């Protein structure tokens, strides 16, 4: 990691802004993986064997033709390479930055198998997509207008992937977004150092430049719009709702200093000046997923002196990838396992610490042992899971659910005719950006087939 995190820090007690020297923030939050230079890209691309029915392509949820795009890079055709990528995955730029490639394409790479050093597919993908985005050109065009209209709920990766593909197929799309900005988790959720320089918004602008897509902001399903109305007014509806609800700690008392990690990350991502964003001196993050890692690492980068992640289970049960755990540790975050929150401690309404109860492995849900310990903390961030807000569409009476999320078939059709869904809100997914993009694309293709058949009938 090239970033420096070793800055002088303000030891102010409690939650305070400006813990680092003003000039340090840019460096602390700089690009986690700086782009390859042209020469580095050529050398790395040459490592690709151009495999037959390449395992990397099979491992990619969006089935990007990886050998082809890498070969295009070796032939100094970066723009062609980007088109190969984006044809399969219109969020190829973001996926190059946030995909856990070590468990997807790069894990499948025959070079990983042969020598433990996969081709750096993610960085090559970024190299190509950056080249195309720098041209400002949209490589795809819209088919002749079909006269059909599709409503997409949610302007995150699933929704915009669906919208872009529908636009390519000649349909008109209206996207309804509850927030005032598009991008979904790309804009509000992903750690800042993975997508600096406002990349999420630039990518959305790029995707929308195909035309035929209108976004209406401040439109929340169940509040400003409803599913029945959308079905009446459109030929099809796609739900890319994400997981709008968060799980709570369920402990008594709410001293100030306890916050939800998702909200804190969103605040950080939207902060115009990170030096004015308050962070605790001692931060405890509760959880074991990517959100916990992102919250902990960014707290540390903001200048928190001590940051501890506490996870209730064993290390191998953490949802955060090994790579992400290592990133947290090398940034100076301490990860403690097998402990679950028992009490929030406060004085004068302000948080002073959090008490945990140790757990032991049982094979299933960790079991409490009765033994406790307390960590001093002036800030606790909870990252213990997000959930679907099914009330937005009328609950299980309207759409069949599976494990608390919307049930869909392989074409991403819900139980309700004319309604498709994808991304984190559907069951059976992996909660990855790349899967959401694939959901949106597959739903768009399915919608197109359905509308074609309806027309023919």
């Amino acid at each position, binding site marked *: 990691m090239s970033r420096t995190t070793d800055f002088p820090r303000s030891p102010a007690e409690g939650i305070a802004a400006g813990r680092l020297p003003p000039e340090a923030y840019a460096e602390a939050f700089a690009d986690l993986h700086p782009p390859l230079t042209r020469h580095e890209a*050529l050398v790395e*691309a*040459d490592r690709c064997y151009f*495999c*037959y029915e390449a*395992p990397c392509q099979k491992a990619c949820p969006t089935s990007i033709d990886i050998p082809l795009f890498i070969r295009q890079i070796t032939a100094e055709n970066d723009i062609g390479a980007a088109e190969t990528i984006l044809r399969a995955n219109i969020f190829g730029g973001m996926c190059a930055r946030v995909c856990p490639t070590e468990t997807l394409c790069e894990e499948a790479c*025959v070079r990983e198998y042969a020598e433990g050093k996969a081709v750096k597919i993610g960085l090559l993908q970024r190299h190509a997509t950056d080249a195309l985005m720098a041209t400002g050109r949209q490589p795809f065009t819209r088919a002749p207008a079909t006269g059909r209209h599709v409503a997409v709920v949610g302007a995150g990766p699933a929704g915009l992937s669906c919208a872009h593909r529908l636009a390519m197929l000649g349909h008109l799309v209206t996207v309804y977004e509850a927030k005032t900005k598009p991008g979904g988790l790309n804009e509000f959720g992903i750690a800042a150092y993975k997508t600096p320089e406002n990349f999420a918004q630039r990518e959305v602008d790029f995707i929308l430049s195909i035309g035929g897509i209108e976004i209406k902001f401040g439109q929340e399903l169940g509040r400003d719009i409803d599913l029945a109305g959308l079905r009446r007014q459109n030929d099809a509806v796609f739900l890319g709702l994400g997981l709008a609800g968060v799980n709570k700690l369920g402990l008594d008392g709410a001293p100030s200093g306890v916050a939800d990690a998702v909200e804190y990350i969103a605040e950080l991502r939207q902060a115009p000046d990170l030096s004015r964003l308050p962070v605790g001196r001692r931060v405890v993050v509760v959880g074991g997923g990517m959100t916990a890692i992102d919250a902990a690492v960014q707290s540390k980068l903001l200048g928190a002196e001590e940051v501890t992640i506490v996870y209730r289970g064993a290390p191998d049960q953490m949802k955060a990838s090994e790579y992400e755990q290592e990133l947290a540790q090398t940034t100076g975050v301490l990860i403690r396992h097998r402990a679950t929150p028992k009490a929030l401690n406060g004085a004068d309404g302000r948080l002073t610490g959090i008490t945990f109860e140790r757990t032991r492995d049982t094979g299933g849900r960790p079991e409490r042992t009765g033994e406790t310990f307390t960590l001093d903390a002036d800030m606790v961030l909870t990252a213990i899971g997000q959930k679907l807000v099914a009330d937005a569409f009328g609950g299980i009476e309207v759409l069949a659910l599976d494990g608390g999320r919307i049930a869909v078939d392989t074409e991403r059709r819900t139980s309700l005719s004319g309604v498709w869904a994808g991304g984190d809100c559907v069951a059976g997914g992996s909660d990855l950006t790349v899967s959401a993009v694939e959901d949106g694309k597959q739903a768009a293709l399915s919608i197109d087939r359905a509308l074609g058949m309806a027309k023919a009938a």
Partner: protein
Amino acid sequence: MVDLRTEFLGIKSPNPFWLASAPPTDRETNVVRALKAGWGGVVWKTLGEDPHIINVNGARYGAIHGPDRRLLGFNNIELITDRPLDINLQEIKKVKRDWPDRAIVVSLMVPCEESNWKNILARVEETEADGIELNFGCPHGMSERGMGSAVGQVPEYIEMVARWCKAHTRMPVIVKLTPNITDIRYPARAARKGGADAVSLINTISSIMGVDLDRMAPSPHVDGKGTHGGYCGPAVKPIALCMVAEIARDRETSGLPISAIGGITTWRDAAEFIAMGAGTVQVCTAAMTYGFKIIDEMISGLKTWMLAKGYETIEDFRGRAVGNVTDWQYLNLNYVVKARIDQDLCIKCGRCHIVCEDTSHQAIATVVNGKRQFVVKDEECVGCNLCVEVCPVEDCITLVPLTEGVDPRTGEPIRSGYANWTTHPNNPMRVAAAE
């Protein structure tokens, strides 16, 4: 104990590695640096008559690179020496005096008149240089003026000039051949007929390195125009090896000493040329790519290999490969091999399969028992070696000879004897098999 000392036409050098006549041997400064670095000898950059030629003031060199800028092929349009004859001769004399144990050979190129050659030979002799090399190879610039490869492409001229040189000097005469010709044996035979003591080859191959698609001009260019240059470097080694082999095994030139040139980059390249009959090897592009220090690797590598093989001098293995170069018609048609894929080494990239499937004999299966696995189908495999060459893993795929039973592809029994095309029933020109 390994001894790399070489004697070639009576010219002694501490090792067989000479620098070829080229930019690295243009002047005393460079040559002395090379000799200090350990090179066995040099062929001084070609001398011509005064007034000396001039070079272009733009790019003289071009290259083809691998992805990590590894230089694979090289090209030049530099002409012969662009310094006065006197200066060169003075420097040669001084270097030879200071480095008596090294081979100092002088490359020459003058117009095709006996008096011109006679005059320059007399002056070179005064330097006490060890020998001369007649530059009949340079394919660019000088050839437009009736010299260099313009001579090397006409065997009668080669013979004529070689004869003049033998008549007018006591120095050994090496004729440097151009590869820009259909059959290298003709100029080599002409050189021998003219009395030349040896040939050296190959000189560079006429080449245009690329087209600049923005300028729509050759690259590199000189003020927007380009001309063909001479191609050399690692990419030309196979061509040079073939030509050396042809001369080494030709009845009329067999035994003619050869100084081999062409893409020699490491000790192994040198050993291969020596095994193909060369008495010394000449290097240029490798030095121009990495500097003179590469001689350390070449000497050390050759010695280590010779020690392992039990060779004491290069004469112990020189020419050993020549007898195994033959004509296609004499290859043993009873020799049947099948590709074998080592499943422990295979990384399952599938390249062997797709190239065989698309461009050869559909002889490699992709799935065995429902798993991605690449296995040769003996009933289709012709043993062509394509899969071996495209496999990224060394020694993962090998060709294994069948020694008994039936070839599942042809249904023919494996025969133990030797049989070639000359007696094959499908050959309309066949001769009766020897009893």
